């Protein structure tokens, strides 16, 4: 098939050269015909090779490891698809979706009205797909004797109203708050979900990554910080959280998030602009498949119930 296409291209070129007529330009015509055949042969070859599709996913830093694990397994099963996953934060993902530089956006928060409007302005409707749940784990230094906090205490600590551990049942020790940067979806989630949209304390340290929060809290006896459930290490201690003062404190775990008893939990989304393309839909279906949700659990996130 390849050869026949190549020959046909050559034949067409021959006709063109006869029509061209001028003897002086014969050499040039021959060169041209040669080039055209090579190009067409190339096109023919490419057409016969397996189709290579690409899928660009950008967004939430919380989801970047999870998403990369999905992409890896997905590409193993679908060798003709190239999936590229980048972080940068939920807002970055929506920005890319609006600008059309990504096919899908990972988001650890629902889309904002302004972002949804920007997508509608391009004639498309943003579509949310819940692909997993995340629980924010509140961490302290292992030397801290505090075992549990309620949501009100947590909010008071993060806003800077409470500045000593003794006010929440701990040792007489100052509190140092470690937060993510304001570009992080987790920052926005904690602000909305825990702090009732009040501002973080001015003395809160804004760390550029989850790893640097872990590093800092592991080193700082006074530290408190928040990380995704999947990032908990033995260098820090997770705190049990009660929904209300006097309520039962619940440690973050997959079960506690799945049965909605752990209060600091949230859904994680993949957004598409309009209905996802065939390959994008295939990817989302894969994320929600048994295999995909097994990966979700392995990465420390919580699978979508009922799947």
């Amino acid at each position, binding site marked *: 098939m390849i050869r026949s296409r190549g020959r046909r291209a050559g034949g067409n070129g021959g006709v063109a050269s006869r029509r061209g007529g001028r003897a002086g330009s014969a050499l040039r015509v021959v060169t041209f015909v040669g080039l055209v055949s090579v190009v067409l042969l190339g096109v023919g070859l490419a057409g016969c090779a397996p189709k290579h599709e690409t899928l660009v996913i950008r967004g939430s830093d919380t989801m970047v490891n999870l998403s990369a694990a999905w992409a890896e397994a997905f590409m193993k099963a679908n060798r003709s698809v190239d999936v590229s996953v980048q972080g940068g934060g939920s807002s*970055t993902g929506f920005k890319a979706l609006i600008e059309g530089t990504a096919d899908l956006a990972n988001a650890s928060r629902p889309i904002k009205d302004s972002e949804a409007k920007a997508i509608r302005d391009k004639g498309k409707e943003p579509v949310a797909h819940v692909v997993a749940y995340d629980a924010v784990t509140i961490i302290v230094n292992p030397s801290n004797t505090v075992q549990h906090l309620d949501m009100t205490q947590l909010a008071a600590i993060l806003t800077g109203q409470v500045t000593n551990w003794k006010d929440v049942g701990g040792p007489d020790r100052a509190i140092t708050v470690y937060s993510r940067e304001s570009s992080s979806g987790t920052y926005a989630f904690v602000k909305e979900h825990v702090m009732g*949209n009040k501002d973080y304390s*001015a003395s809160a340290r*804004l760390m550029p990554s989850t790893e640097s929060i872990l590093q800092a809290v592991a080193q700082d006896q006074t530290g408190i910080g928040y990380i995704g459930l999947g990032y908990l290490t033995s260098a820090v201690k997770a705190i049990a959280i009660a929904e209300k003062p006097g309520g039962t404190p619940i440690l973050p775990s997959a079960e506690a998030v799945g049965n909605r008893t752990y209060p600091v939990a949230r859904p994680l989304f993949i957004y598409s602009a309009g209905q996802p393309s065939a390959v994008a839909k295939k990817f989302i279906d894969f994320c929600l498949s048994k295999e995909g949700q097994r990966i979700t659990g392995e990465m420390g996130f919580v699978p979508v119930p009922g799947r």
Partner: protein
Amino acid sequence: MTRLSPRRHVPVWGRQGRAGEERGAEWVLGFLASLSLVALGLIFVFLLREALPFFNLYAVGAFLTGREWQPVSTNPRFGLVPLATGSLLVTVGAAVIAVPVGVGVALFLSEVAPRRLREMLKPGLELLAAIPSVVYGFFGLVVLSRWLQAAFGLNSGLNALNGSILLAVMSLPTIVTLSEDALRAVPDTYRAASLAMGASRLETIFHVTLPAARSGIVAAVMLGLGRVIGETMAVLMVTGNAAQVSFSWLDSVRTMTATVAAEMAECPWGSTHYHALFAVGAVLFAVTFLINAAADALLRKGVR
């Protein structure tokens, strides 16, 4: 007539060609040089174009004197004071460390060290400039913060001092190289005259050579600090980025550069926050420009 004849043998086209070539080369080089000026101008225009709308949305006074930086609050506040004091603290700290060390090293290299030692030390120092700032930042985050925590009995080693130390090291290559050039430009006759007058080597260094090279050294320091105030990645990683007004080097601070770097990706295009970050960038540009202009003026004075 006879005097003119040899000239006839010089191929006229060759001479013209060479002149033309020269003019062409001059023109190309001039064009390339002006490109950088054009780029600078365009950056400045772009910066101003994006920064000025901020002042339609937010009061200039509140920006310049505000003590709170809460850009994604329900009631956003864009106060420059915590960011400016953060940058100031880190930069002054870096200067306090880098200037004595840098000038000392330059004095050693130019006045004391034997030639072979100098030829080994100088490339080593210049290699410091080749280390990416994210590597410095990682070192500060993981290693230096522990040392500071232990040395000062702190809760956290992520503070202005950490940033100052890293930036001091990063500015050393600039300060040392340029200071050494300034010192070596001092004519040997000065040293010889001083020694002949009975001054010791130490007296010669501090009372003759150093004062003679003063303006060059000041310029070197300012160029080094120009790098310091604009440095972003390392300070973003090690200063803790708490937007509080503080004058203690042991507190966490947030610099202007770190703010722009950390928040630019997230803020919606065209929002108040977006323009506020450009306003911060314009302030940074102005400060860096002033420092470089001052350094340049001093260098000129030195040349004269």
